[in-house]
């Protein structure tokens, strides 16, 4: 008989959280700490969602999405997780750019960017200050008509090099483009610019292990390999979920699954009104990614002057379309030195490129494998520009594609940054459609990335807690009139 991953699970919980990405994990922990009974269901065999890692023979550990987050993570981890988790967050001080327009190294904060823009790019100081102030002052309720491209044109007219410096890292961080609303750019960019780029010492595996321990302490019932088939709705209110062939009741459900999958697959379109369905249909998924994972032989070292993050490109100009093309001209390298996992003697490189699902989905299995091999080889060639001896030092290399992301996260089209801006309003409106149903996950660019997802988990946990208090049955219950 197969193992019952729900053995001992209760019939009923206050809240069921579907999916253990950083938003789902943080929502579950926050709700349990406020006194609710919480069941966390993850379809994969490990927690973390896109915040994940994998191991390969020889002791190599690759991080998938540990590339750098804003300083706000320290506060969020301290408050919603633990002092120990917050204390492991350290700065990545060497962020590099190398492209036909410029090469530079920066700490990626406002002070250093101001210096670079004035001294190296010769932009008037007043424009630089005005741009930073405008980006900093942006919030969620502002006008959404202005695009990122228009924002840049206002402060740096005709300066393609400046746009590249300001935009390329954010495009890699969350898939946003020059056509997206300026506010989504301004909020994310300002978060990074406040203190620079940070990482988690010990790697993603250690972070998720610590979070798992914290969930247990908070009293969350954590279950892996539990694939939710259906969110159950009765009389316009959420009633529970169907998981691994079993029904479990709940007064509230938080879905950390992909937004559109939640609405159209887990709940079903007929539980939503027409206007909402149209809005949800119209939500654009963000793009996916390809990555190449390269592990050096034990003890083989990388020169730290390579930097921590390197935005490299051979394209003459910055163009969003070019970033998604299978004809790869731009790559972001994350260099992981042994200090990433103190005590380790391993150095690793992960190369990331943005990619379209449709470019990979239609291939025959032969072409798909050949394309993956080609991706590894061309990436090694490209990396040799910075690490000439890479092939001699290499112990293991492999690639992932949009199909890989889809396989492990079940995100539609392997979306690695959730949805475009309009997804946020749809995510927020779900509880008005189905009482007690909530969505927390990467949406609207602002709520993407490790910090965005984590904070969105808290925001939604607050909504859930408020809903449960409001909808608490009156005691003693009024006898039903039948």
């Amino acid at each position, binding site marked *: 008989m197969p193992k019952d991953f729900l053995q001992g699970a209760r019939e009923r919980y206050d809240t069921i959280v579907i999916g253990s990405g950083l938003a789902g994990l943080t929502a579950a922990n926050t709700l349990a700490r*406020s*006194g609710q009974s919480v069941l966390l269901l993850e379809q994969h065999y490990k927690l973390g969602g896109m915040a994940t890692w994998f191991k390969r023979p020889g002791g190599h550990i690759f991080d998938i999405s540990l590339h750098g987050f804003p300083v*706000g993570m320290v506060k969020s981890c301290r408050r919603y997780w633990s002092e120990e988790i917050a204390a492991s967050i350290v700065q990545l001080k060497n962020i590099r750019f190398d492209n036909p327009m410029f090469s530079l190294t920066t700490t990626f904060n406002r002070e250093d960017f101001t210096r670079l823009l004035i001294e190296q790019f010769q932009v008037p100081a007043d424009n630089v200050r005005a741009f930073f102030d405008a980006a900093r002052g942006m*919030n969620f309720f502002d006008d959404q008509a202005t695009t990122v491209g228009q924002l840049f044109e206002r402060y740096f007219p005709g300066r393609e090099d400046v746009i590249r410096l300001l935009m390329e890292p954010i495009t890699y961080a969350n898939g946003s483009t020059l056509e997206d609303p300026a506010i989504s750019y301004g909020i994310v960019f300002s978060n990074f610019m406040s203190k620079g780029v940070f990482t988690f010492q010990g790697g993603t595996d250690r972070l998720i292990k610590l979070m798992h321990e914290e969930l247990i302490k908070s009293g969350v019932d954590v279950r892996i390999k539990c694939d939710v088939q259906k969110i159950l709705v009765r009389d316009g209110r959420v009633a529970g979920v169907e998981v691994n062939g079993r029904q479990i009741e709940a007064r509230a459900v938080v879905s950390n699954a992909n937004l559109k999958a939640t609405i159209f697959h887990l709940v079903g379109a007929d539980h939503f009104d027409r206007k909402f369905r149209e809005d949800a249909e119209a939500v654009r998924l963000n793009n996916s990614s390809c990555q190449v994972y390269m592990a050096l032989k034990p003890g083989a070292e990388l020169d730290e002057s390579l930097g921590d993050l390197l935005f490299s490109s051979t394209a003459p100009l910055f163009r969003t379309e070019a970033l998604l093309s299978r004809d790869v001209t731009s790559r972001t390298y994350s260099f992981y030195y042994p200090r990433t996992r103190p005590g380790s003697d391993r150095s690793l490189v992960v190369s990331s490129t943005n990619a379209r699902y449709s470019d990979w989905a239609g291939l025959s299995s032969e072409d798909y494998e050949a394309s993956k091999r080609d991706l590894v080889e061309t990436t090694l060639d490209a990396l040799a520009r910075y690490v000439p001896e890479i092939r001699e030092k290499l112990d293991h290399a492999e690639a992932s594609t949009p199909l890989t992301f889809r396989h492990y996260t079940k995100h539609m089209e392997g979306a690695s940054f959730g949805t475009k801006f309009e997804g946020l309003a749809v995510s927020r409106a779900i509880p008005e459609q189905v009482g007690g149903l909530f969505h927390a996950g990467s949406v609207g660019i602002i709520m993407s990335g490790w910090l965005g997802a984590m*904070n969105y988990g*808290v925001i939604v946990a607050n909504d859930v*807690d408020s809903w449960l*208090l409001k909808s608490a049955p009156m005691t003693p219950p009024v006898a039903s009139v039948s």
Partner: protein
Amino acid sequence: MTPVEIKAVILDILEGIAPDEDLSDLKDDVPLREQLELDSMDFLDIVMELRKRYRVQIPEDDYVQLATMNSTVNYLSPMMKDLEKA
């Protein structure tokens, strides 16, 4: 709870949210955001903490009432006057 007690509760919550800040010279009629490094997540934490401790519900549209200490205490007074300080 009296307004003085409500203020003490808010100060206690703020101490947890901004442990590195000195709250002793906080001006009651100046926006908290101008005196402390608070972002929107911090205000959400105040709301969550009040619900956790006293089951006080603050709808999202009313978050603006939490701008200054005075406005916060004025806003909360009718809701918390019959509660005992925890």
